Structure formats: C-alpha cells, structure tokens
C-alpha cells in the first residue's frame, strides 16, 4: 500500500517537474523557534515568491536551502534527489550586492567561474556574451563604486547567473533601490528570466513586487515563520508594467494584504 503510494507520488513529481522541494523546515536560533514546519516547492521555469514581514526568517530559509546554515529539521530535494545541507546546488543572490570593491565588474561577475578554476582570461571570455542581456555593456571595466545601485544589482545578478545552476535564489535583490529604479529593475528581471529559463525563488516584503513577478506566492507568518497561504497568480504573461493598476491585480493585492495582517 505504502509502496504504491510512493510510486504514485514519484510519478506525480515527475509529471509536473518539480525542481526544488523544501519539506518541513524547522529551525531554532539561540533557543528561539524562528521557522516552523515550512514546506513548499518550485517547478521548472517557475517564479515563486516567499513573502512575509521583515525579519520573519525568510533569509534563513534561503541559507538553509543553499547549505550555508546547518538545518535543524527538514529536507531539501532538488530534481527528486536529497540535497539537504549540500552546498553549491543553487545560484544564490543576497540582498546586498556583495561586489568585491577591488575587482572590475567583469571580474566580479566572473567570480564563480574563477572559483571553479577558470583562468581570468577564460572567465572574461565567457562573461562577454552576457553583458548586453544584463545591461552592463560599456561598464565591464568599471569598479563597483563607480556604478549606480541598479547597475550594481545587475552585476550581482549576472554573477549569480554565472554560477549556472538552474535554480536561482534571489533574496530581496531590489530592497535597497529607490522606487523608480526598482520598478525598472522588476520589468527587466522578467525579461531576463524569460530569456535565460531559470526556476526562480524570490524573497520580498513588497506585495506589489511579489504579484507582478510571480507565478505563485507563499505568504509567511511573523516569527516563527509558517506558511499561511499559497496564492497562485493567474495574470497573463508577458506582463506589462500597467498590469499593476488592473482590477485583477488589486484583488490579489487586497487578498495578500489581509493574509499578511
């Protein structure tokens, strides 16, 4: 009976092509529970957002998936394989751009290639074809301090992409940007995500950003974080910027707003 159930489950997973599954994450920090029984999944080429109040432990969830923080309880599986606590299975971008100030943009974005053992020359060669897509053409030999906040995030995103895992974790990448730059970057991110075909797991506490970008949203509670609700966003793609003013958009926004409070 159990065996049959497992087989059915296995085929079900295959059918909808689940890239990443997080099961029953539970975590404590200095004796305080910060995450409680959080489970979710990410399908191939899907854009999924975790939304929750600031400091509810969203970043910790990412650190657990990336294998940087030891996991108290729970499981991570990628393409059906157990990857709990394994490092280097996902591309991970932090809230801070974390560009090394002494490296030019091209060498900063080449960092994952250099860590893998490429020479600087080889690594640079591999970066060049992507500069245009990421809007960094003409800036490749600048130092990070010479770039604007938006450009720095673009560089950080290209670096994340160059790690070339098909699962990408983005932790509030636009959190530090002004509203106008932010809105432009969101639009641009959708374009890029469409072209590079990646499965994206996104963190934000901005409801509008979450709805605009995502296929599905997991609403998390305050600390300790639990999944309160899963919301599927059925807005058509490609999404124009104006969609944020549509009635359907506002209905979803209202729903999530209530769910959060």
């Amino acid at each position, binding site marked *: 009976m159990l065996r049959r159930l497992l087989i059915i489950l296995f085929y079900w997973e295959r059918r909808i092509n689940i890239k990443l599954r997080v099961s029953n994450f539970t975590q404590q920090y200095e004796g305080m529970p910060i995450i409680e029984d959080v489970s979710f999944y990410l399908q191939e080429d899907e854009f999924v957002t975790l939304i929750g109040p600031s400091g509810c432990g969203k970043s910790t969830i990412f650190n657990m998936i*990336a294998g*940087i923080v030891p996991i108290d309880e729970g499981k991570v599986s990628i393409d059906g394989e157990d990857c709990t606590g394994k490092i*280097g299975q996902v591309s*991970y971008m*932090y809230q*801070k751009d974390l560009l090394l100030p*002494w490296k030019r943009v091209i060498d900063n974005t080449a*960092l994952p290639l250099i*860590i893998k053992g490429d020479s600087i020359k080889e690594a640079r060669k591999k970066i060049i074809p992507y500069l245009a897509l990421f809007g960094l053409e003409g800036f490749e030999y*600048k130092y990070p301090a010479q770039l604007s906040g938006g450009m720095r995030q673009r560089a950080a995103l290209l670096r994340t992409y160059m790690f070339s895992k098909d699962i990408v974790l983005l932790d509030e990448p636009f959190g530090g940007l002004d509203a106008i730059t932010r809105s432009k970057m969101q639009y641009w991110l959708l374009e890029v995500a469409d072209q590079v075909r990646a499965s994206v797991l996104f963190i934000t506490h901005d409801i509008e950003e979450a709805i605009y970008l995502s296929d599905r949203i997991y609403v998390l509670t305050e600390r300790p974080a639990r999944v309160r609700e899963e919301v599927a966003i059925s807005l058509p793609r490609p999404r124009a910027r104006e969609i944020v003013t549509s009635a359907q958009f506002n209905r979803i926004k209202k729903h999530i707003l209530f769910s959060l409070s």
Partner: protein
Amino acid sequence: MRKKWGNIGNKTIPFIFLAAILVFWQLIVDRGIIARYILPSPVDVILVGMKILPEIKVHLYTTLQEALTGLMVAIVFSLLLAMLMDNFSLIQKAVQPLLIVSQTIPTMVLAPLFAMWFGFGLLPKIMVVILVCFFPLVVSLLEGLNSLDPDFLNLMKSMKANRWQMFYLAKFPSALPNFFSGLKIAATYSIIGAVIGEWMGGKAGLGVYMTRVRQSFALDKVFATILIIVFLSLVLFKIIELIQFLLMPWRRAINK
C-alpha cells in the same frame, strides 16, 4: 576668520609653522643666547650635513640594509602569524595577549641583550627592527582580515569556494588598506629600530656614527645625522605610499 585660515590649505600651514621655528632657532644661536657648541643653528646643521655626506654614505647603507631586511622578515612573519591567528581561534586566543604584553617591553632594554646574544654584527640590529615592526604589522593585518563582511564569505561558500580561494580572492585584498597603514608605521619604526640597535656597538651604521660624533662632542654632526634619519624615514614612508597607490587602483577610480 576661520574660513580664511581654511583657504590657505593644509599643506602650507605646517610649513609656515616649521619655518617660524627654524628662524627663531637660528636667531637664538646667532645672537649668542645659546652657545654654538651646545645647540648648533639650522644653517650649521645643513652645511655640516652636506660636508659629512661622503663619509656617512657607508653608514647610511648599513642602516638601510638592516632596516629593510628586518622589515621584510617582519612582513613575512606577521603575514604568517596573522593568517594562523585568523584561521585558528585557539592560536589567536593564545597569542593575542602575549603580543600586546610584548609591546610594553622597551626596545632600549632589549637592544643590549641582543648585542650580548648575537654579537656585534648585523643580526642583533635586524632582530631589533623585526621586533619593533612586527607588532603594528600583525595588528593591522588582523584588523584588516576581520573587516570583511561575513556575507562575502557566505556568498563564496555558496559558490563552493575553498578556504584558500576565500583568502586570496576576498580576505587578503580587503585587508590591504589596513595592512598598508600598519606598514607605513612599521617602515618608520624600522629605521629607528636599526639606529637603536647600532647604539650598542658595531662597525658601521648611522647609530654607530652618531655615538662616535657624540663622544667627540660634535653636536652639529649629531644633528645632521638626526636630519638624515628623519629624511630616510620619510622617503621610506613615501615609497610605501607609492606602492599602495600602484597596488590599489580601485581606490583611484573611486576618487575620480
């Protein structure tokens, strides 16, 4: 009023001040208020300095050789120790207090001991230089290695970087500004250290020369030697600033 002084610029004010002191000093000696054999005038010092330059050359080279050798050895050792302390907290805990206590021992006391243990050659002088340079270098390096945002290391960890890659790609470059401030201090100390070492005796060196001319009461030559030591330290300081300028191009790009 305040604005007016601000406009003169930070570089001219100390020069004017120094010039005033020198003129005052010159006048005191010229008027005979203080006897020349007790305090030679600035002009005397410069004239004597030019005169003794050929005979002092060999001493200058010796001191420079001791100072630079000591500095190099101190750099290598401080780098090794800082790396060890940074990687193993046990070593850090064990060594840090000793390092600080070691700084309370006056160099003047150790120099004669080194002379007794290692003779009158170059070695005891180099040892003094290493000792005085070591501390500022280790402290600045440790501070620099700790200054990196730990998220940088987490990021590199998520990219499967090994410890050595994290060190040379992120930690070491981030420690460079601190390292260079320590190095500038160490470089000026190195000349003084070598001179103190030479006071205990030896064949050549600015300290040896200084002891000799002091014993023959040629105070103008003592002053001229001091001037040369100051000049040497300043040159070393500037050379290190230049190396820093060349090694850290991103700093220049930011200032543009």
